[in-house]
């Protein structure tokens, strides 16, 4: 399986994948405004496995949206894989998302009534990958997540765990610089959760940068570095000694 992960892998640079400088995200104006992010600075190197933890309202989801280029911040700078994207418009952000980031969402976010294979192929289609190569890469990615025999199933014909693995395959197939997971186990049972976290371990072992946003302790403890957030600020950033010898 590890060889298969390497097969879909690309060369990973040793510069910071994520460089966030003094990120501020404010909702509303004047006295009524709320700081979802209040001066967050963060640097994540290539090949790291990072968990971002915190209770609801701590700003971790906002941070994830900013890191994922899904949302823009009020002020601050953000470099993704060496490219400053805090000043980009929505159209360029879409391209950056497609090429640099593989998303895994709590609610899977697969396209309904569309086969697993077509779902995995979709981001590559938007990148302009040729159909033949796209199909091969999608098949490999689905093999990696253990769904090689279910490529023609639609999301409704798959279990939650399987759907999430399709989402992982979709994220992996584009060979992103960063795998970004937002509460990936939130909708899964404990067996599926275990399988998914094993998969993350393998992906990280193959050299891929993985960032997981979670409020579950056992999920966070599988990461090699844990960042804790509260009230829009980073309150803890430590190496997970259980995982890093």
């Amino acid at each position, binding site marked *: 399986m590890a060889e298969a992960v390497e097969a879909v892998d690309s060369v990973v640079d040793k510069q910071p994948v994520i460089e966030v400088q003094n990120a501020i995200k404010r909702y509303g104006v004047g006295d009524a405004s709320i700081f979802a992010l209040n001066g967050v600075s963060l640097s994540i190197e290539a090949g790291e496995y990072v968990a971002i933890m915190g209770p609801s309202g701590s700003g971790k989801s906002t941070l994830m*949206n900013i890191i*994922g280029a*899904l*949302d*823009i911040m009020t002020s601050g700078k953000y470099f993704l894989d060496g490219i400053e994207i805090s000043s980009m418009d*929505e*159209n360029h952000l*879409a*391209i950056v*998302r*497609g*090429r640099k980031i593989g*998303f895994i*969402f709590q609610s899977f*976010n*697969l*396209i*309904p*009534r*569309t086969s697993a294979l077509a779902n995995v192929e*979709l*981001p590559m*289609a*938007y*990148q*302009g990958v040729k159909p033949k190569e796209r199909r091969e890469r999608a098949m490999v990615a689905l093999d990696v997540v253990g769904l090689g025999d279910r490529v023609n199933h639609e999301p409704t014909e798959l279990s939650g765990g399987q759907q999430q693995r399709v989402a992982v395959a*979709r994220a992996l197939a*584009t060979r992103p610089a960063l795998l970004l997971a937002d509460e990936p186990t939130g909708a899964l049972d404990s067996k599926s959760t275990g399988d998914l976290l094993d998969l993350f371990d393998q992906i990280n072992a193959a050299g891929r940068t993985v960032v997981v946003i979670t409020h579950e302790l056992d999920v966070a403890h599988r990461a090699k570095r844990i960042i804790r957030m509260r009230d829009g600020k980073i309150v803890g950033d430590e190496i997970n000694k259980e995982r890093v010898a």
Partner: protein
Amino acid sequence: MSVFEIIRFAFRGLFINRLRTALTTLGIMIGVASVIILLAVGNGSSKAIQSSLDRLGTNSLQVRSGGGGFGFRARASANTQKPLTILDTVALTDKTQAPDIKQVAPIASTNGTCVVGTNTSTPSTFYGTWPSYYEASNTSIQSGSYFTNDDVTQARRVALIGQTTATALFGTASPIGQTMRCSGIQFTVIGLTAVKGSSGFQDGDSLVLIPITTMENTITGNQPLTDILVEATKSTTATAAQTELTAILDARHGITGRKTADFSVFNQASLLSTASSSSQTFTTLLGMVAAISLLVGGIGITNIMLVTVIERTREIGIRKAIGAPKSAILTQFLIEATILSLLGGILGVIAGFVGSHFTIYGTKPVIVPASVFLAFGVSILIGVFFGGYPASRAASLRPIEALRYE
């Protein structure tokens, strides 16, 4: 991301939502088809009126006994009125007094039944007249020959018959040279008139024409004329001809004012303009109904497109999150809208053409070419514009907003 790829996405999007696609297409189809068919019906009926009036001849005038129509007044003054006679007819041929009258034909009409063996037929038109009638009434011969002035002076027992009468009496056999008995008198059929078609409620081919002298001598006796058919030199001189013939007949009948007139004149040209203006109104009305149905179809498309985009906001969010640029989303939805309206438009045009082949309430629809382009064009325009607007709104959403949408 090639355009071909986006078109594939659009087709897949439509295929996945088959029912919605089918219903939207149906809506557009009905709108387009109804515009084409309704306008074709309006056009067809006005064409029918036009052609039946053309058959009557626009430059013909009809003089009839009785003042101001066939109503009360004519009958009330019956004791003082003078009938129309052959002499009146001859007076109208005076070229110096009536330079705009080309020719004149007397009409004596009767009701009678014609018999051949066991076959009988009661012609709706049974006229005694003379040869200038043919041209004045647009009657032509399909086979055989006309009766001549000589036949009239000799009061020969010859007849021209129409297609309906011929079929009723002789079946498929040629009637030329055959004999028939009408009102008890034996006639030799010498000519079969060309098909006239029906004008209004009367079958123009249920027809027997005989020399007027023969009719007076054998059937009706010395009865006054029913009508005098007058043909003006041109359709533009019909009104002048009417003035001239009125003056001549006034003098002959001793009429001093229109109130005491014992005859009335019907001008086909004025009838034509009345009829064509009423058919114009009819067409306009149908056109409005059609336009409304196209508008409703258009609102239907708009509604479906709005719902489609709203329903798929989340999907749009997912697509944007995994790297779809705005242009790809917009193009996909625009192509979906275009395919829908194109498909509906084409099917509507086909349905319109097919529907126009049927006779609707006795009217043979005649397609107005402009209505096809108009209906098709409007449906595409509506589809693209009202499909494009919600699509562009959705494509502009930040992915995070679109993803949050449930």
